[in-house]
């Protein structure tokens, strides 16, 4: 939701379903993006601040920070361990012709436990398949697809930067504009280190609510 021209906020509710280990509500998160500069520049910065009130059963890995694998006990046990986390990201993005490039540097702090500051990163490049828009409606034409590659991972924390426990991924990404207001995005991340999962699948569907006021 665009609150002002320079501030957008999003609220997420999370839950988890597993095969055999249980289900549960895992919490909520509030994301805020602040764009400090009025115009677009060669490199445009965006400050991202996220507050999370989640429990240890959360499986959504929107970003990777710190080090070590996720805990895999029963969901009922994990939901009792609450965490309040504050995450800050510096997002730098550039448009180079038909290419879009972005780099994120992430710092996360668990406010419930003293785990120090955890660090992560994400870099990506994306390209529209169709340079021009057709005059007719089409759903499967090149202009509705964006393809790209992302690399993301955790760098450790102020408690330690053990390289062996770091998780790093590289992922091809495809985004499809399903309709005028909705987009489907999917990626498969391939783990690059022994601590990384072999594959990390991310699927997202976004729908833009039409809010229109006429004179």
């Amino acid at each position, binding site marked *: 939701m*665009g*609150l*002002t*021209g*320079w*501030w957008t*906020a999003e609220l997420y509710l999370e839950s988890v379903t597993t095969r055999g280990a249980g289900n549960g509500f895992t919490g909520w998160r*509030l994301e*805020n993006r602040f*764009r400090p*500069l*009025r*115009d*677009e520049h060669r490199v*445009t910065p965006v400050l991202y*601040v996220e*507050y999370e*009130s989640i429990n240890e059963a959360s499986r959504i890995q929107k970003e990777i920070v710190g080090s070590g694998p996720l805990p895999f006990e029963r969901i009922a046990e994990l939901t009792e361990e609450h965490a*309040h986390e*504050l995450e800050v990201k510096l997002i730098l993005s550039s*448009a180079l*012709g*038909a290419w*879009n490039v972005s780099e994120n540097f992430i710092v996360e702090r668990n*406010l*419930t436990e003293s785990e120090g500051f955890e660090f992560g990163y994400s870099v990506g490049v994306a390209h*529209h398949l*169709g*340079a*021009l*828009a*057709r*005059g*007719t*409606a089409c759903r499967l034409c090149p*202009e509705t697809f964006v393809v790209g590659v992302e690399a993301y991972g955790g760098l450790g924390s102020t408690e330690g930067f053990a390289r062996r426990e770091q998780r790093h991924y590289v992922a091809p990404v495809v985004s499809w504009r399903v309709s*005028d207001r909705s987009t489907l995005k999917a990626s498969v991340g391939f783990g690059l280190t022994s601590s990384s999962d072999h594959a990390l699948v991310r699927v997202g569907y976004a729908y833009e609510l*039409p*809010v*229109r*006021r*006429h*004179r």
Partner: protein
Amino acid sequence: MRVTPMIAAALLVGSIVLRAQPTRGARDQNTRWMAPAAESAKVNPLTNRSDMAAGGKKLFQQRCAMCHAEDASGTTDAPDLTRSTVQRQSDGQLFWKITSGNTRTGMPTFSFLPPLQRWQLVLYIRSQSDNRTTTSAVDQLTRRVRYAPQSAPSRQTSD
């Protein structure tokens, strides 16, 4: 920790307060939002491709009509793009504004679109101005004929 729910509450309250702030005044008084000279001088590579305006129209419906209305005549959220103050601006100026956005007025950035698609949007905005002019000229002509004084003989009756 009690401080964490306080942070969340502060963010939520802050969002509500900022949502209530008017932005229209800032938008209408936005005369200093101008492209650098080099950007303003850019020429639309699709200028002679009027067939490309149809694609621009589709993009406009998808990306811009929500705020600027389907015929670009503006809404309470965004200005009328057919008016002369907008149409007098160079293609490069419009392209830069579409690309750059303006956080002060709530105009989003469209730099994620390929450059040619942004030029298609410029082409469509121009075509809307032309359509409007043509339509109003036709309307005026029709009105003149329809409401012509009864005493004035038409060419057909005199012939």
